[in-house]
């Protein structure tokens, strides 16, 4: 189709850069005020306590200065008055793809979501602009008492649980963007896994921004009760526009004693999206929280998935990759706080920069005074593909207990001509050779992904490497 062709030319290599005609049932004017915050709450018919916390968070957001680290230049160029804070596209959240409006359904078809759902997922939620348009969970899990809902439904149907945990791990005062999210949040996932239940196949959420100058503020809360386990996967894309959109999510995880939560993100926003996300989990006794975080797109990402190791014997892992191409800055990393004894953490961060992109690792590991025999392992590797690109590392360690075993390694490397020549001599073109090196560099991350994502990520990186030499 010629229109597809035009779209393809406009978006270049970014495959998810098309957009649908906008067809909204409710669309707020641009800009943010207390009135906007109250209206969002009113539309959703929320309880008073939620309205109150939104309003408090709004005032905190207005008063809170912008962070003075990360990319201050890009942060200060965000035009909060030119963003739409709420946009309803569908009639509601459907549990059958056939009931989702056709244009939206086609978008998720193109992104392969219904197909993946049939093959290997336990449940899916698909969010389009501000709200979930589709939601479903396998019956057997529902029977076992697993709750998997979009956050708005979660608040309606399980107000007691939401009230108990909402803002308990990330208070709205945590930072400017957690305040913004708390004020205007909409959508996201609410998950509760009962004691001892293992959700074998991953559940997935997919976040799609379609409109121009859109703000997407999903809010996710996952509670894994004692001895349970769950793997949650999220993907994100947006159309390529010349004006900017803002994605600012808050994710809170609670791992009760002996529970296991893995949270995997493949973020592939178009390079006009600011991605400013706060993610934090609390790990009780002998539980594990793992963040597997892939940042492939966006204009600016600032995101440092965190784990508070509160219970003895708990474990944290943060495995992340970042790719920064032209006009992109990935300021990503990890935070782990060891509050209890015999807690362990592992951080692996890998970044690739190309065509003037900038990748920064920013990490904090703290071990409190009373936490005995903790183990910390931090590895940061950067691969820089050309002279215009930049990589920096800001690791911070605050170890207050001398019994801690702490390892830290960092490396910065470049692709050498000899490495490329070696691969080319085995019949691989220059682009293929570079993709092999890059995919190899990301391999420790990719092998953590479900196979379907691993294949997709490798293809994505091969596409990014095309024509990048010479």
């Amino acid at each position: 189709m010629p229109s597809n062709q035009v779209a393809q030319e406009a978006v270049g290599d970014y495959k998810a850069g098309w957009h649908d005609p906008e067809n909204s049932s409710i669309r707020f004017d641009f800009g943010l005020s207390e009135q906007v915050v109250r209206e969002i709450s009113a539309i959703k018919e929320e309880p008073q306590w939620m309205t109150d916390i939104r309003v408090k968070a709004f005032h905190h957001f207005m008063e809170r200065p912008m962070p003075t680290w990360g990319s201050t230049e890009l942060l200060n160029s965000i035009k909060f008055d030119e963003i739409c804070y709420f946009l309803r596209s569908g009639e509601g959240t459907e549990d059958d793809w056939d009931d989702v409006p056709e244009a939206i359904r086609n978008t998720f078809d193109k992104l392969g979501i219904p197909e993946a759902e049939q093959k290997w997922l336990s449940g899916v939620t698909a969010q389009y602009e501000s709200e979930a348009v589709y939601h479903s969970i396998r019956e057997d899990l529902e029977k076992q008492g697993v709750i998997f809902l979009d956050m708005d439904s979660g608040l309606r149907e399980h107000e007691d649980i939401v009230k108990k945990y909402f803002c308990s791990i990330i208070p709205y005062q945590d930072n400017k963007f957690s305040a913004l999210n708390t004020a205007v949040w909409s959508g996201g996932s609410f998950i509760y896994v009962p004691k001892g239940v293992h959700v074998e196949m991953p559940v997935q959420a997919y976040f799609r921004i379609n409109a121009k100058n859109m703000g997407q503020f999903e809010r996710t809360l996952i509670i894994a009760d004692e001895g349970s386990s769950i793997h949650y996967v999220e993907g994100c894309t947006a159309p390529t526009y010349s004006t900017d959109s803002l994605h600012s999510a808050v994710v809170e995880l609670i791992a009760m004693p002996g529970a296991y939560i893995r949270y995997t993100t493949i973020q592939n926003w178009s390079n006009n999206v600011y991605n400013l996300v706060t993610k934090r989990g609390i790990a009780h006794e002998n539980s594990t929280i793992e963040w597997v975080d892939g940042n492939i797109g966006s204009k600016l990402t600032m995101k440092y998935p965190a784990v508070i190791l509160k219970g003895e014997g708990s474990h944290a892992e943060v495995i992340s990759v970042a790719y920064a191409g032209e006009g992109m800055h990935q300021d990503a990393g990890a935070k782990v706080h060891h509050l209890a004894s015999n807690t362990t953490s592992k951080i692996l961060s890998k970044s690739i920069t190309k065509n003037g992109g900038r990748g920064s690792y920013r990490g904090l590991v703290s071990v409190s005074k009373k936490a005995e025999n903790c183990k910390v392992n931090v590895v940061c590797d950067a691969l820089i593909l050309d002279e215009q690109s930049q990589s920096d590392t800001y690791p911070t360690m605050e170890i207050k207990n001398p019994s801690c075993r702490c390892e830290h390694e960092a490396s910065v490397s470049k692709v050498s001509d000899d490495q490329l020549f070696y691969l080319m001599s085995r019949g691989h073109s220059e682009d293929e050779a570079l993709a092999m090196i890059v995919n190899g560099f990301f391999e420790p991350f990719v092998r953590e992904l479900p196979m379907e994502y691993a294949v997709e990520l490798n293809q994505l990186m091969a596409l990014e490497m095309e024509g990048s030499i010479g």
Partner: protein
Amino acid sequence: MGHGESDIEALLEIRNLHAGIDDIQILKGIDLSIAPGEIHAIMGRNGSGKTTAANIIMGHPDFEVEEGEVLLSGDNLLELEPWERAREGVFLSFQYPQAVPGLQVGNFLRKSVASIRGEEAAKGADFRRELNEAMDTLDIPRSFLSRYVNDGFSGGEKKRFEILQLLLLKPKLAILDETDSGLDIDGIKTVAAGINAAVRGTDSAALIITHYSRILEHVQPDKIHVLIGGQIVATGGPELAMKLEERGYEWLDSKAEAEGIA
């Protein structure tokens, strides 16, 4: 059958090759012709231009050809990219194979075979059988396949891996750059067995680049060329290797000096 050597079209033909790197001339007029089924050796000390010759034939982008021709079965190799040369049947066993962390050996071998010999050759039970046989020939354990290409390999493992690739990629012309260096006698025998398996009884040819005559005892080259100062100063049969072993390169230096090379 019954053709004299002059009737057979050369597999590799190098004519008056002048080449170098960063404006430094290293090869100063090389002529060399290798027929299908032949094994040739180039011997010479460090800095004589042996590795440069290997890099030029394979197409390393850092080296520049000033003059001369390199033909494979009559076709001009110098116009082709390195990967095109590989697909035409040129193979280089590297002196210093490069590590690619994260790239699994098994996966890499399959992709390389697919790229050079075609997708079909890299599929199914036949490929696995071929792979297992080649690994057995070279005493390489199966666990090798899940390691990363040359990452943390010992010197001997790197050389065996190069020969494993040689056996699987089935090139027309195999260039082996110092494949024997750093190997013990068992390693040399294993590598030599691999080279013989790849060339003997086929229409392929090999060019072995080496300091020492040890490996040549196990592969029996048809011709030996001695490279000094970027030129071939002597060519002969296996007896030339014996002579170099006994007398070193000094006796050829005077010859090179007389010809104004060294």
